[in-house]
């Protein structure tokens, strides 16, 4: 959900871009972190922990905690909280610790 009315801040409209999350087409603002666009779309689970398979989401937003590692355009372990969204990105859940050999 986007914040519309704010007494101090105004948020730039930005350029709308389409990307996919697990094959589903979503829209977000170009250049915002992938995690912000996913959050706006109501997606809270960003990965599952490698050992106990527990759902994990957004946490630190500074690229420090590893809670938001996902596969982006085939590349695993991307910190989506600090990675800018681009048109046509393919965002997916990653299995376990991710497979770098699967990257294209």
């Amino acid at each position: 959900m986007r914040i519309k009315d704010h007494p101090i801040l105004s948020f730039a409209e930005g350029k709308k871009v389409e990307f996919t999350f697990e094959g589903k087409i979503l829209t977000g603002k170009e250049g915002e972190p992938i995690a912000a666009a996913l959050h706006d779309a109501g997606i809270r689970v960003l990965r599952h922990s490698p050992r106990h398979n527990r759902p994990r989401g957004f946490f630190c937003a500074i690229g420090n905690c590893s809670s938001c590692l996902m596969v982006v355009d085939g590349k695993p372990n991307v910190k989506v909280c600090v990675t800018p969204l681009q048109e046509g990105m393919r965002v997916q859940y990653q299995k376990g610790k991710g497979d770098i050999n699967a990257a294209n």
Partner: protein
Amino acid sequence: MRQTDLAIIGAGPAGLAAALEAATAGAKVILLERDEWLGGQLVKQTHQFFGSKKEFAGMRGIDIATHFSEQIEKNKDIEVFTGATALGYYEDGVLTAAYSGRMLKIKPKTMLVASGAMEKMIPFNNNDLPGVYGAGAVQTLMNVYGVAPGKRVLMVGAGNIGLIVSYQLMQAGIEVEAIIEGSSQVGGYWVHASKIRRMGVPILTNHTILKAIGEEKVEGALITEIDENWKPLEGTEREVSVDNICLAVGLSPLAELLWQAGCQMEFSPQLGGYVPVRDEDLETSQEGIYIAGDVAGIEEATSAILEGQLAGISAARKMGFAVEDKKIEQIKENLKSLRAGPVGEHIRQGLAQVER
């Protein structure tokens, strides 16, 4: 390999202030920043700062960040690398950083680590459930990107961050169920606390969280009253219906680079965890390595700016650039007056332990 007088890691309030002071004294500066922008956590601080005019009181954090960035960009003696993550500092005096898919190698005469801090976590059941966010992350999401972190929030911690972020949540049209605080007193400034109370949000002291409720995401929280030994009081447990649990339970210094560089570290609860031992000019036990801001001990942006100025100017003086003693004394005086009074007591205690 790049040569420079001073390499600064981190372009938050401390790093920016240091870069300007050192460059003013005549030093060539390389400024490395992991994020794509300058300003660090200032960019999400929409509240006006307290303190005295010369330390930007009355300005909002976001405007202070812009003020500094403009001066830095104009300054030809400061070379800025954004999207550059410092990796290590080695025995031969080489600093490495990952930048744009390659490795930067820098040989600085002096180095300043101003890498900041990260959110602390507290133990409770399901504390890894999506919807449990650090207060800094909540601020980033709503104040920088305009995305609501939830509809109804439980704030954990009534220090200044908990109070200020609660107020900012309400400004963004998000409900705050309550602020819970483990100790018997509000830790932040009373002026912030009264503002929150006037808006109808209860601040529950002697309360803690036992559990985040939900399967895939937060749907509620179980909270309880606690006694003076922080033990839950039987029969006081209750569920609150929230979709976000915001943790404002303190920060810990991001000191990895200092550990790796061999600086002597000491544990100080008052300063937020392990921090480097330093002298009064903010030089660590490793000659030529300086510190400033939250990595030196958790405080706030105004003290980070002053420490940045002090470390930047001290590093310049060490390299032989002409610096007026009066200026250094003035910065030290400003820091001292900022830390005076009861609010700064824990900082003074912490510093007494780690200053040599």
